[in-house]
Structures are given as C-alpha cells and as structure tokens.
C-alpha cells in the first residue's frame, strides 16, 4: 500500500473510532438527560433544552475556540486532565471526543426526548400498577418503546460526528495520524490540489451517509410494522 493510501485509511479509522466513541458516550449520557427533559416540570427544563440545542445554531469554530481555551492546560479542566493522564486535551484524540460529544449532543438528545414524550404516561402508569418501580419502568417500558428514537439518535449522532469539521479542526489541529479525520483530510487534499484523493474520500463519505440513512429507515419501518 502506498503511504498516501495508508494516511487516508488512518484518517478514516480515526473518524470511525471517534464517531463510535462519541455515539456510545452520548447514548449513555443523553438517554437519562432526554428522559429527564421529557418528564420534568422543573423550571430548569427550558434553559437546559436551549443549552442542548446550542450546537445546532452556533458556528462550529466558536464552539471549537472556547473548547480550545476551556480545555487547555491552563484551564481548571485541562489542568485536572493533565494531572490525571499526563497529557493535554487539545490536539489529542480525547479532546476530539469531548468536542464531538458536545457538538453532537442535540442530535442524540432531541430524537430521544421526542420518543419519550410521545409515549405518554398511560403505559408507565400501567407498569406502576403492576408493581414495577421507577427504574424497572424505565428499562422495561420506556426504553424498549423508545427503540425507534434510539436508532435515530445513534445514527444521527454517529453520522454527524463523521461529518464534523470546524470543531475537530479547532480542537484537534488536524495532525495526520492523530487528530486528522476524513473531513479534514479531504480539505487538506483540496488545498494540495490532489482532487483525485479528495474525491475517493468524499465519495466514500457520501456513500456511507446514504447507507446509514437507508439502514435507519429500514429498521424503523420494520419496527413500525410490528406495532412499535
């Protein structure tokens, strides 16, 4: 394999690893958050909903800039990270994950929240009358019934992370082999006038996005046909 192809493959592997890690973290953090947002009557609900949606309207470079500052070795968070791991968050894979988790948050939380909200309270109440406690109800009723929302959330979170550019460039710096993801590699190829290499990567991402959406729609259609 030529070094050029290897470098591109590395960028693809980093991208997929980043997207998978981010999606996993987002599902673990986003599901309880979405559940809380769907059920609470707290006054905090609206401000937190607005915060979650911020990445949808903010320029990625703005988020990236503040992350760079906020996670740097002189910030409290960055210093703590440095003591724990003896490394810095900016320009590292861990930094990319932190940035991606924040940036893709709404794409995971919003479909989940909508799924939980559409369930209503009737089935949860029925489960309560059958002696299911709150956690039991969440895992045996709310979560299984949010399956379509979970599929959508995971897909959107994954695909959106794959397509990220501004945030990962700001916080990762696009270091080949470490923090250069596919979208940055495409940009660099275009800068170097290597349109053929850019085209291979770009077409790959295009096909990937299409396949993933196709998969989601198929799964959701199957679930719907089974009355879920």
């Amino acid at each position, binding site marked *: 394999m030529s070094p050029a192809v290897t470098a591109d493959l590395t960028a693809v592997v980093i991208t997929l690893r980043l997207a998978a890690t981010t999606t996993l973290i987002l599902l673990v953090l986003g599901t309880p958050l979405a559940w809380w947002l769907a059920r609470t009557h707290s006054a905090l609900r609206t401000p937190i909903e607005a915060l979650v949606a911020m990445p949808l309207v903010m320029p990625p470079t703005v988020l990236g800039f503040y992350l760079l500052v906020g996670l740097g070795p002189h910030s409290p968070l960055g210093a703590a990270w440095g003591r724990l791991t003896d490394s810095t968050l900016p320009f590292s894979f861990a930094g990319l994950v932190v940035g991606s988790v924040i940036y893709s948050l709404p794409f995971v939380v919003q479909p989940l929240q909508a799924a939980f909200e559409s369930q209503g309270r*009737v*089935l949860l*109440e*029925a*489960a*309560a*009358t*059958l*002696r*299911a*406690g*709150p956690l*039991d*109800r969440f895992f*045996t*009723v709310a979560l*299984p*019934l949010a*399956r379509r929302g979970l599929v959508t959330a995971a897909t959107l979170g994954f695909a959106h992370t794959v397509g990220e550019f501004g945030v990962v460039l700001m916080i990762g710096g696009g270091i080949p082999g470490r923090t250069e993801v596919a979208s940055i590699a495409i940009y660099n190829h275009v800068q170097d006038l290597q349109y053929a290499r850019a085209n291979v990567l770009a077409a790959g991402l295009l096909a990937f996005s299409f396949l993933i959406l196709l998969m989601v729609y198929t799964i959701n259609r199957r679930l719907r046909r*089974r*009355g*879920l």
Partner: protein
Amino acid sequence: MNAIRVDLRLERPGFRLEARFDAPARGVTALFGPSGSGKTTLLRAIAGLEPDAAGVVRVSGLAWQDSARRIFVPTHRRAVGYVSQETALFPHRTVRGNLDYAWRRAPPRERTVDPDHAARWLELEGLLTRRPHQLSGGERQRVAIARALVSAPRLLLLDEPLSALDLAGRLRILPYLERLHDTLDLPVLLVSHSLDEVARLADRMVLIEDGRVRACGALAEMLARLDLPTAHGDQAGAVLDTVIAEHDPDYRLTGLAFPGGRLMIAQHPEPIGARVRVRILARDISIALDPPRRTSILNVLPAQVSELAAESPAQVMVRLDVGGAALLARVTRRSADALGLHPGQAVFAQVKSVALS
C-alpha cells in the same frame, strides 16, 4: 366489615374532588355518576396515580395513603389491579409477555391467579402469542383484566371496562366480569356511567356528582331511592336478587323466587337453586287496585305503595314494597289521581317485562 375506606380531596382549576366512602372486602362497588363528575380521577387517586390528592386510602387494614400521617405509598407498592379505559397493554410484548410481566412482579406469597389460569379463565389461550395490535377491542380488554388479576391485587379498579366496546363486545365480556364477581374473593371498584352496567355487575353503589359523594349504599336500596336521580328517567328501575325455583319445560318458562313472590321469565339455562339478578324498569310496571283477571300479563305481584314522587308534570314515580323488596313504577299523574295512590295503600304491580342482568 368496611375493608376499604376512601376519603380524598383534590383541587384542580375549575374542579374540586371531595369524596368519602367505605366499601366491604367483598363484592363490586360501582362508582356511578355522569361524565365529568370525577369518577376516573377518584379511581386514579385510589391507585396512587394522582399525587396531589390528599386524604386517606385504606385497604384491608393497610394505609395506602394517610396525608395527616404523611403516608403516601407509591403506586408500584400498592397491591392494586387497574384496568383503564384505554387498555394499556405493552405493545412490545405478546399477550403472554404482558401476563408474565405482572406475574414476575407479584410477591410469590400473595399470588393467587397464575397466567395459565387467568388465560384459561378469560379464554385467551389462542391469543397468547399475539401482540396487542393484533387483538380486537374486547380481546384487549380481557387481556387487561387477566393481567390485573395475575398481579395479585387486593383491590381491583375497573374504569369503564366496557366503554370502548360496541354492544356485541359488551355482551361478550359481561359474563367474564360476572364470573369475576362470583368466584373471586376480591373487592372491586367499578367506574361506570351506564346504569345498565351497574345494575348487572354491582352490589353497592356510590353515587358521584360534581366530585362529591351524593349517596352510597346497597345497590337495590340505592336504585329505589326516589330522592336520587337514578330513580328517575327512562332507565330508572329496580333490581331483584332471585333464586331459580322451577322450570316449566312445556311453556319454556322459568320461575324465580324472591321474598315478595314469584316471577315467570323466559326459560333460563341455569339449574334450580341458581341465583339470578333481574332488573325491572319503572316504565314496565303498571299499578292496579284489584287483582287483574283475564290478563296476558304473567307477573302480578301484591305490593304496597311506600312513596310517591313527581317525575314530570305528567308522570309520577311510585315506590312499591313487595315483601321487603322495592320496585319502581312509573305511572301518569292522571292514573295516580284516579287510583288515589298514597303511601300504605295495597295495590297490585303488573310487570310487563323482566330484564335479566
């Protein structure tokens, strides 16, 4: 005796619930009243689904709620079976899966009806592998009842269990509910706005109006009380608990005995000695002063007028005492005047039709 005590208050904008009643440990108590009177809210509060409700709910010696003592047992710790109007079956589970969900969470020592038993009883054996969306309304309702029974409740709450069904569906599910009543040693609170349903299923009635308990008591007594709206209108009538005393295979008739005499009805399939509840509407009884002879009416009972109340400018509702049982008769005011009807008067009640409940 009074195994169930309910004394609940709940305030909502434009609505106030303030209900207090007792019910025995056995039998069906109907919460009856017009739509919007707060029956469903009351039932939900008893199940612990209305956290804003304050007051007392006590079931067979256990305080499920006692706001003065800061006791509020959450729904999942109340041994309550709840069948709501919108049969809330889990769509991601089969019928069997729905029954098992309840069974697994019922404390082993309190379990009474297992899923197989419940399925056999409500004739669900052929449906066990289906999912809720593949069931008819009546089947869903039966599954919901079976699931509630499997959860080993100490109190069964039924919220308009027949309202989602058409007439045919109702007629099919009523026998199951009646069997429930006859065989299970489990108190049932039944919310209904159908007097017919109440007359068929309940032993006691709590009459609810505008979030308050207007009156409560044994069903037969309640239905005969002329001061209550249930004793007025086209559906007004009395219920009698009778025993099958004879069959006349020649004329295809069955004789029902009750303290006030005997009623002949169309042949009934149950054997002699079986208990049968009948409902006789006030509009189906006419009054005569002399024993009518040469009449086609089979059932003529000696009775005594106990009370009269104006029904409309043209009609009068008459309560009759028939050997201790009460019957209602609706007659025109003109007839009442012509016969000089007054309390204590001996008359004959001619029963034009008897409905089986």
